[in-house]
């Protein structure tokens, strides 16, 4: 008797790609968990919108991009910055409001950017960064470069006008943009079925004449393979596309606790955590003998060390000097 087993799509990928996806996700997870602890301990000022739970999306998409491909991000943007290769020291320093931070203490958690790696910034206005990615794609085409641009945004942002304007513009101008919707099921505290009648955000793509695809946002391999295809398509001049990744955030909209009103059930949260993207990928890698458990554990321990050093760097960094407050209001 013969049995056929469905081939894991993962087997098509080189082990290096899988390690890369895993490492990006672990770095995000630990960065965010530690940031949450610092906030809880009262050591950090401001708001904190944690990305934990959605790691497969940032990791899967970023692994398909080069340094010069541009991404724009959201208020929940740490994951995108980490996955794009931002320096964790300058990220923590910004979270602490220090002069050594990515924004020199002027922006904070919601504005991490690093132009040298194509991170055109996170944005505190929902949808605000989407047209910037379209503009970055326009600039690439204008200069004859084959870069693509990837705006990240949530399900909630697809209800704001600038999303629709940007999608239509990218389509009509045939720009190399991959719109990535991280559908975590909630616009802040409002569930999707109360903020849109559509079940799938991907359906919106049809109204701009671009392809829309759905991918399991808890599966880094699936996200990677979908993004790889759609990025290649955009890079080849075949126009924009919309990728909807169904995912979930483990923490609250803002902060770590904060559940003033329990708008999600524990069962729902647990059911998503059962499909945790990092745990799932580790299991697949070990089962397929791509990695030994201790190799994966080393990624966690190395990252913990890197993060401890980054936090120390940030805490010991100088505050900005009030005398320099007006720096960078204008280019002079």
């Amino acid at each position, binding site marked *: 008797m013969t049995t056929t087993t469905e081939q894991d799509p993962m087997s098509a990928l080189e082990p290096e790609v899988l390690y890369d996806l895993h490492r990006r996700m672990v770095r995000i997870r630990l960065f965010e968990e530690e940031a949450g602890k610092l906030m809880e301990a009262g050591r950090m000022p401001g708001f904190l919108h944690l990305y934990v739970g959605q790691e497969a999306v940032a990791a899967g998409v970023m692994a398909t991009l080069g340094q010069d491909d*541009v991404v*724009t991000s959201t208020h929940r943007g740490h994951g995108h910055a980490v996955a794009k290769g931002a320096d964790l020291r300058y990220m923590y320093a*910004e979270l602490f409001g220090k002069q050594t*931070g*990515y*924004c*020199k203490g*002027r*922006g904070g958690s919601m*504005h991490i*950017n*690093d*132009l040298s790696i194509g991170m*055109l*910034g996170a*944005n*505190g*206005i929902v949808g*605000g960064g*989407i*047209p*910037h*990615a*379209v*503009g*970055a*794609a*326009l*600039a*690439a085409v*204008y*200069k004859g470069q084959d870069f693509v*641009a990837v705006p990240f945004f949530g399900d909630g942002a697809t209800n704001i*006008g*600038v999303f629709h*304007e*940007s999608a*239509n*513009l990218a389509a*009509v*101008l045939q720009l190399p943009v991959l719109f990535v919707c991280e559908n975590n099921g909630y616009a802040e505290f409002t569930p999707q079925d109360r903020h849109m009648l559509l079940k799938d955000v991907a359906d919106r793509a049809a109204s701009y004449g671009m392809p829309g695809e759905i991918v399991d946002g808890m599966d880094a391999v699936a996200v990677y393979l979908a993004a790889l295809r759609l990025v290649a398509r955009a890079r080849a001049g075949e126009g924009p596309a919309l990728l909807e990744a169904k995912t979930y955030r483990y923490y609250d909209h803002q902060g770590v606790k904060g559940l003033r009103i329990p708008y999600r059930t524990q069962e729902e949260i647990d059911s998503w955590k059962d499909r945790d993207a990092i745990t799932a990928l580790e299991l697949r890698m070990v089962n397929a003998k791509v990695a030994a458990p201790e190799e994966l554990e080393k990624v966690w321990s190395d990252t913990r060390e890197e993060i401890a050093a980054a936090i120390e760097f940030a805490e010991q960094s100088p505050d900005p000097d009030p005398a320099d407050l007006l*720096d*960078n*209001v*204008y*280019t002079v």
Partner: protein
Amino acid sequence: MREITYVKAFTESLMQLMAEDENVLIIGEDVAHYGGVFHAFDGLWKTYGEKRVIDTPISEMGFIGMGVGAAARGLRPVCDLMFFDFIGVALDQLYNQAAKLKFMFGGDVKVPLTLTTAGGAGLSAGPQHSQSLEAWLAHVPGLKVALPSSPHDVKGLMVAAVRDDNPTVVILNKRMLGTKGPVPEEIYEIPFGQANTVRSGRDVTVVAVGRMVVEAVTAATELAESGIEAEVIDVRTVQPLDSEAILDSVRRTNRAVVVHEAVTFGGIGAEIAAQIQEEAFDYLDAPVLRLGAPFSPVPFSPVLERAYIPDSNRISAGISRLLERSGG
């Protein structure tokens, strides 16, 4: 010197700026094939092609945001907002994005975006196609805002705006589009933040914004016949504001009238008046007088609109009142 219209001076500035810098491009509604609803972009698409002159959907928020992104990636976009009144549907990309990106990203990004638009009343265009909202934008750190009052200034201020590495807004006055005046053929720059003393005088300083400069000069010319010499200062840009030029003049004339087409309440005149009393109080022989539109939307009826917009008669009357009060 040859004379050309206000709108042709605008077109010529872009023609020359695009020749000078291949990263300058134009983005807006009907700017390419149609040449813009005011013919302000006539000939640019034919000369520079659709790569550099881009027609967009009616999506002001989208295409201005696209301009922000393109500017952050090294282009020098000129985004055209057909009527200044439409700023509301695009404002986030201007005041939260273009204006703040450099500051909130720690200085690593430049946004050399120019927004061009047409403002002002006088054409019976009604409440949503006639407004003067420059004070809104002047209030936002990170933006620069110009209101050219002559063909000569349109060209010079446009050149300065597009060459500037900051987001700039150039507000054309619709009623002046056909006004002719001397304009040098070569490319030249009028720096932002440098007011222009259009007319010298010893008795009163009239600080004027945009087309009100023309009305102020008319008033001053009339008053000169009765021996009153008004100095007229064209602020040219309301952000940055050339406070020194205004204060220097007021310290000499000891009286000030501020005039703009926007409603008086909360207009840029309020800022100018406040600066004068803070910095030159001891020089004043009378309170600073603000002249602007009444607190009402711009009316459609030509009769009402004429009553609404400040003109040379109201400026003359205001100056006379000021002089009577202070025994001038």
